[in-house]
């Protein structure tokens, strides 16, 4: 399916800022499940935008605005062809790379809450990895309540599960931690999804050499309506936007608008 996507980030500063550096991971990466066919980028105030790939192969856009300004607008839009495949093949035949995704990372250190959930789930878990993936994902979906504002970008999997609340990032972290406890390589994926007004996060788990995408927030398998920007061990590797600016007095407000529509349909009106 051909999907037109648009990711738009608007920053407003309460006081003029300068030396604003930004690093964005909001470019769909090419995988077995998706190919980027068109891309355009706009930044205001106008500045040279550089691009590169990071250590995990995720695309980055980055740049710098030296002059004083009070707002920043970045729009990335383009077209992605999704194949509808439910998995990606693992790229590294030696399997060493899989161990990157079995070790606990900053957000996915299991504590008592996760360990007891894992023990409890072990009693009913199917024997095969894929079966367990579905089993754990359902548990996360059933246990957690989707409640924006209860957690923030620093919330770990353990904290989120203790609260039993969170957003897609927390759902993903909890599921990843359970999978890693079970020895199943699991990674965090960030991107867009049809019908979702913000960027989204889900999980990819490696079962018998294939990376299956699963969206614990919506309890869905990741299909051709998802566009992946990046993957990594957890949120930290996949932050869609990172940045810093000079002026300690300035308070930043961020607005994100995204859209994903099949190419033959008209784009939803922009806010």
């Amino acid at each position, binding site marked *: 399916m051909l999907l037109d996507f648009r990711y738009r980030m608007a920053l407003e500063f309460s006081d003029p800022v300068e030396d604003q*550096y930004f*690093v964005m991971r909001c470019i769909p990466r090419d995988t077995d499940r998706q190919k980027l066919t068109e891309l355009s980028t706009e930044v205001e105030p106008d500045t040279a935008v550089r691009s590169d790939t990071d*250590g995990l192969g995720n695309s980055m856009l980055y740049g*710098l605005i030296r002059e004083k300004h009070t707002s920043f607008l970045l729009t990335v839009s383009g077209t992605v062809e999704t194949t509808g495949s439910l998995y990606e093949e693992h790229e590294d035949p030696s399997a*060493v790379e899989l161990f990157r995704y079995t070790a*606990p990372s900053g957000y996915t250190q299991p504590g008592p809450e996760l360990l007891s959930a894992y023990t409890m789930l072990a009693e009913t878990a199917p024997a095969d990895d894929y079966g367990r993936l579905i089993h754990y994902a359902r548990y996360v979906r059933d246990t957690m309540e989707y409640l924006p504002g209860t957690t923030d970008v620093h919330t770990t999997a353990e904290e989120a599960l203790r609260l039993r609340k969170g957003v897609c990032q927390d759902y993903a972290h909890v599921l990843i931690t359970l999978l890693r406890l079970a020895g199943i390589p699991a990674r965090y994926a960030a991107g867009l999804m049809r019908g979702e007004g913000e960027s989204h996060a889900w999980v990819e788990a490696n079962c018998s050499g294939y990376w299956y995408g699963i969206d614990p927030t919506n309890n869905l398998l990741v299909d051709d309506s998802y566009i992946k920007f990046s993957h990594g061990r957890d949120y930290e590797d996949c932050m869609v936007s990172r940045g810093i600016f000079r002026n300690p007095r300035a308070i930043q407000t961020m607005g994100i608008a995204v859209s994903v529509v099949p190419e033959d349909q008209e784009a939803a009106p922009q806010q």
Partner: protein
Amino acid sequence: MQELNKHVKSINHLLERYGVRFGIYKDGVFKEQLFPFDPIPRVIGKEEWDEIEAGLIQRVTALNLFLSDIYGEKKIVKDGVIPPEFIFSSSGYLTACEGLKTPKGIASHISGIDLVQGKDGKWYILEDNLRIPSGASYPLIARDLCRTASPGTFAGTHVADNRDYPKMLRDTMDYVSTGGLNVILTPGRYNAAFFEHSYFAEKTGAVLVYNTDLTVEDDKVYLKTAAGNQRVGAIYRRTSDEYLDPLAFNPESLIGVPGLFQAMRKGNVAILNAPGNGVADDKGIYYFVPKMVEYYLGEECKTNNAPTYLPYYEEDKKYVLDHFDDLVIKDVAEAGGYGVVFGNTLTKEKKADFIELIKTEPRRFIAQEVIDFVDLDILDEDGVTLIPRKADLRAYVLTGEDVRVWKSGLTRFSRNPDSFIVNSSQGGGFKDTWVLQH
């Protein structure tokens, strides 16, 4: 040497004169204190040194090859020499450094290798420090001051002059520089090692800078001077990886330089030492260093590790649990003498808890035989009595065009007669280290 003891007062006076201090936080308050200096040097004979030197060159060469490999192809893991868990769960392993190519392929330019001499006369490696090993400035300035206070002591001793360290450091920076100024990046004057940062800047001619003095544009690093921006080619940074660049590492770092890491990835600046080196000086990886030497160099490892057990391996775990009281257990995530536990010092309850912890998190700990290391005499406060204390030696290995071991080193001793822990942050003192020429 006896001569030197008589001049302790003069030496201490000179140490004060030159502000040879290190900072310490006590109850959250920053204090500067003198680093207690003991005038009796550690003396290492030529033959003994030659052996140590050859071993260290080999070891650091292998460690540098390991770092290039681990952030590249990972052959050593693919070939089954090191289990991948030890790489990816190391807190020093940085995903951001994947694929990083360092200028001239060097990641650990300044390596501080800690050794102890056992009562069997053999030298053992305690740990490798490949991030920002500090301390070289102390024996460097101490030598200078001792020669001033007691010139007679040095007449006819054939002690290798150690005052070439700034030159070695400068050569290393020049060799890896991508063109431009050499700078020393300090986290600030409230850093424990600020004296060293400013002293090296003075002695190497590098510019001492704070994070806000540097700026990155078009993936190149510049020093902001009153007369405009000047290109920087090499940064001897004394800021830890985590805080180096808020765009690549800890986003909340206030002492970083935004864009610095990307400038390095683009090959536009050399950072000494490279970020990500923590994966090679991890206490868990230590066990594998002799295997690295064999793997990369095809040579037998010339340095001795202390006999080490990894509870990660079932066999080793069993040994550790059976011989718990004879071993020293180290938490791989801790540094600076913290997270070190001697099995025989624990109460019954604590021991049981600890054993449980090892069972649940085997990867987190290593266990080592307690090496009975030789004591060195230090001069007691009365200025006459000699008292024995535990001491280690940090040797400095600089990798530039060649791998060179500085003919000196920092000998640290514990103040406490029962303690094996010699870190300055835990109240120890230091000695000069003399390497004899013949």
